[in-house]
């Protein structure tokens, strides 16, 4: 079982609040990811990182930002939450493989965010 953690698991906040979703992994993985998943919908990649000080935007436009100061930690921040941000946010990590073989991504339990 993967050692990747997300806090909080559930969050209900009001519009305009600043929030940070935490994600940590103890596997020493270089690559980390944030996905957004709405009910009944597929996952969409919103941010990813190759390693410390690396951050990239994913396929889905997002008003959130991320940082990667430590290998094990990849927090996601919303400066001003809106009801449209209500969703499930999933963090994942994978090894960085030099050989031509796909990385396996391991997922955290998710944070379900509700913005009122």
């Amino acid at each position: 079982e993967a050692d990747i953690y997300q806090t909080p698991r559930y969050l209900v906040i009001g519009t305009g609040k600043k929030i940070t979703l935490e994600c940590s992994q103890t596997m020493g993985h270089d690559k980390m990811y944030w996905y957004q998943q709405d009910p009944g919908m597929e996952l969409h990649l919103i941010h990813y990182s190759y390693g410390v000080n690396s951050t990239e935007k994913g396929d889905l436009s997002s008003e959130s930002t991320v940082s990667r100061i430590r290998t094990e930690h990849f927090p996601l921040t919303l400066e001003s939450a809106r009801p449209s941000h209500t969703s499930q946010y999933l963090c994942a990590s994978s090894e960085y493989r030099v050989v031509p073989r796909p990385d396996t991504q391991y997922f955290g339990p998710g944070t379900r965010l509700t913005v009122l």
Partner: protein
Amino acid sequence: SQELEQSPQSLIVQEGKNLTINCTSSKTLYGLYWYKQKYGEGLIFLMMLQKGGEEKSHEKITAKLDEKKQQSSLHITASQPSHAGIYLCGAVPQGGSEKLVFGKGTKLTVNP
């Protein structure tokens, strides 16, 4: 862009029955992943297939990737209530990428 179609969208079976879930890609795949998700929770990695014709098994779950590497099936033998959940396929496009593309999932219900 890479698209993955999963079928069926939902499936209700009686405990003990066998079932198959399919995942079809619009393009040749570099790698194909199967995950299981309990409602409101994270994804649990099941299996990864990379070679055409490859087949892997874990307990009562078997996944296959066709020779053309555009279609995969997940087969559960003698289903149990513990198999219930949402099964998602994820794929890496040909050429490799860190960006997994996911299907919309198949919701499996197993009635005791």
